[in-house]
């Protein structure tokens, strides 16, 4: 087994799937130009050499086109995998995602189906409001889409392969600070993890318990799953035992694993980088407020980015995005409640 970054794990998934299945192909702006970067974050670099320009399409800057091509090719037997450079541009293709990709199977009475993967880098990295968003929450609200957010190299490869094989549209949120690719980001987290070569998949709808604990259940994804683990370490020393759960996929969502944990801890906290109001944390919270309120010994906390666009300057960006410190404070409060 090799130690791979998430960027390379994703690439390996793409390579293996493209070798395995001729209907899989990649597209996107600057997805692989000789001398270029391979998307914005190196994931697709090198694919052109192996698979040629017929299966690695460098597109015009045209997000409606990119998404529309996925819908059209997907519904007629292909498995397109598109790279979006920055997830923020999802809004430029929102109609194709929400009105077309997500609804076509249903509207056709289940006759048509659309395998397609839309890869959306997310997270705040000192680039300003239009290149910084965490956007998962918009898409968990769209029946017909699946939404995943791998945070380890192992998951990245396994979930990506699963996404490519899924017969429905899948949005993949990849965090810029977790890629660990050749493109260096300030504040990036160094994670290289063991990634088996060859075939394996990670099932959708199965959360990963990143750390076991008995006092507080913390559900956190992507970058926040690392901050939550960091906080949990500190809290452990303070005598507060946190169970950290990484949902890995938001649609489908593994309520069961979280429920089991909540029944044990009686306390639930959700942490995400997406903004607070109407975030996916609210959905998880509301689920437990409806189905498990009697299992709870305390208020359900949602720690999320404050309700602002993402500011550029570090002092403000760091303030808006949940820090380990903020998670710590919320957990301490919860521990007392």
């Amino acid at each position, binding site marked *: 087994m090799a130690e791979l970054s998430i960027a390379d794990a994703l690439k390996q998934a793409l390579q293996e799937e493209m070798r395995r299945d001729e*209907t899989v*192909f990649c597209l996107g702006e600057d997805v692989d130009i000789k001398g270029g970067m391979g998307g914005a974050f190196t994931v697709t670099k090198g694919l052109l050499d192996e698979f040629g320009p*017929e*299966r690695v*399409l460098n*597109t*015009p800057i*045209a*997000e*409606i*086109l990119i*998404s*529309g*091509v*996925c*819908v*059209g*090719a*997907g*519904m*007629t*037997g*292909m498995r*397109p995998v598109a790279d979006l450079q920055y997830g923020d541009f999802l809004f430029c293709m929102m*109609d*194709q995602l929400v*009105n*077309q990709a997500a609804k*076509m*199977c*249903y*509207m*056709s*009475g*289940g*006759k*048509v*189906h659309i395998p397609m993967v839309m890869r959306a880098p997310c997270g705040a990295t000192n680039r300003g409001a239009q290149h910084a968003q965490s956007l998962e929450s918009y898409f968990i609200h769209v*029946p*017909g889409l*699946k939404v995943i957010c791998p945070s380890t190299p192992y998951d990245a490869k396994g979930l990506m392969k699963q996404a490519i094989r899924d*017969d*429905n549209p899948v949005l993949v949120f990849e965090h810029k600070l977790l890629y660990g690719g050749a493109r260096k980001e300030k504040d990036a987290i160094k994670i290289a993890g063991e990634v088996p070569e060859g075939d394996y998949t990670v099932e959708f709808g199965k959360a990963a318990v990143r750390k076991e604990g008995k006092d507080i259940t913390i559900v956190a994804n992507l970058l926040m799953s690392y901050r939550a683990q960091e906080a949990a370490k500190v809290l452990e020393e303070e005598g507060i035992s946190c169970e950290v759960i990484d949902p890995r996929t938001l649609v489908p969502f593994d309520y069961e694993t979280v429920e089991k944990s909540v029944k044990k801890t009686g306390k639930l906290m959700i942490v995400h980088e997406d903004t607070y109001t109407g975030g996916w944390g609210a959905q998880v919270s509301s689920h437990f407020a409806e189905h498990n309120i009697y299992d709870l010994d305390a208020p359900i906390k949602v720690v999320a980015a404050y309700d602002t666009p993402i500011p550029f300057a570090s002092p403000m960006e760091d303030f808006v995005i949940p820090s380990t410190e903020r998670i710590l404070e919320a957990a301490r409060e919860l521990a007392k409640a």
Partner: protein
Amino acid sequence: MFKMPEKERAIGMYKKMCEIRQYEETIYYLFLEGIMPGTIHQSHGQEACAVGMIYDLRKEDYILTTHRPAGHDLAKGVSLRSMMCEMFGKAEGCCKGKGGAMHTGDISVGAVTANAIVGGNLPIAAGVALRCKMLKTDNVAVCFFGDGASNEGSFHEALNAAAVWKLPVVYVCENNLYSATTSIKMTCNLENVAADRGLAYGIPSEVVDGNDVLAINEAAERAIERARKGEGPTILELKTYRIGGHSRNDACGYRTEEEEKEWFSRDPIASFRARLLNEGVASEEELQKIEEEIQAQIDAEVEYAQNAPDPEPESALREVYWEGGIA
């Protein structure tokens, strides 16, 4: 005048146009009577476009249509029964009652689920054509859209990519002079809203009489041939006119009587019928018989659909994700 084809072919086209006309008229009355649910955007008056373009497509070719899909769907071979059942929201509808009038289609005959987002089907057509090319088939996609749709950003993105990638797709603008109630002259400075834009992508285009099924059929042949041979996309702009309103409720108060008269005098079915008679392709009796048979068939399907079972309410929860259908 465009050359009259051999009888079987000519009658085949005539039949299909009649089927569309009578289907739309029947539905119009069902709406007036309050029997049919939902809303409608009807295609009568534009039958020549559907039939001229689609008549020679193969089953393996694809069409992509709009909020005004009935003519295209029927021409591509979506069954009358499944169409009518869908209009009534029945379980046997081509979309099991889930789609409705703006989403008819049947992928098994190459009729992609119709798209009610104006311009939404244009980039999807590029994707379908890309698939045809990638899998090294010689199949093509024919994508219909309105004059109004050509002002959408999706038009621009789709046509540009189709040109750059030389996709096997024919983009067919049915220019019926209006987008809903707005004259296309108010929203575009060009005489030919789609065709005159071909230069902006490097796509050849033709302007065709959209009420002449034979003119359209010849242009279609050229464009489809080009696509099959890997020479890339073509834009066809077919000048035509709606008989009815934009949708249920629309009395066309924005059109002049003069304009309507002028266009109605060039009805695509009446004029083709006149040629069939004049040129001795068919007799009045033959044609009447055809028309009656079609009407009888449509009436039977109305009857069938009205009595067909409703979908189970709970079936609404199914097929949000694929459960293994036909495709």
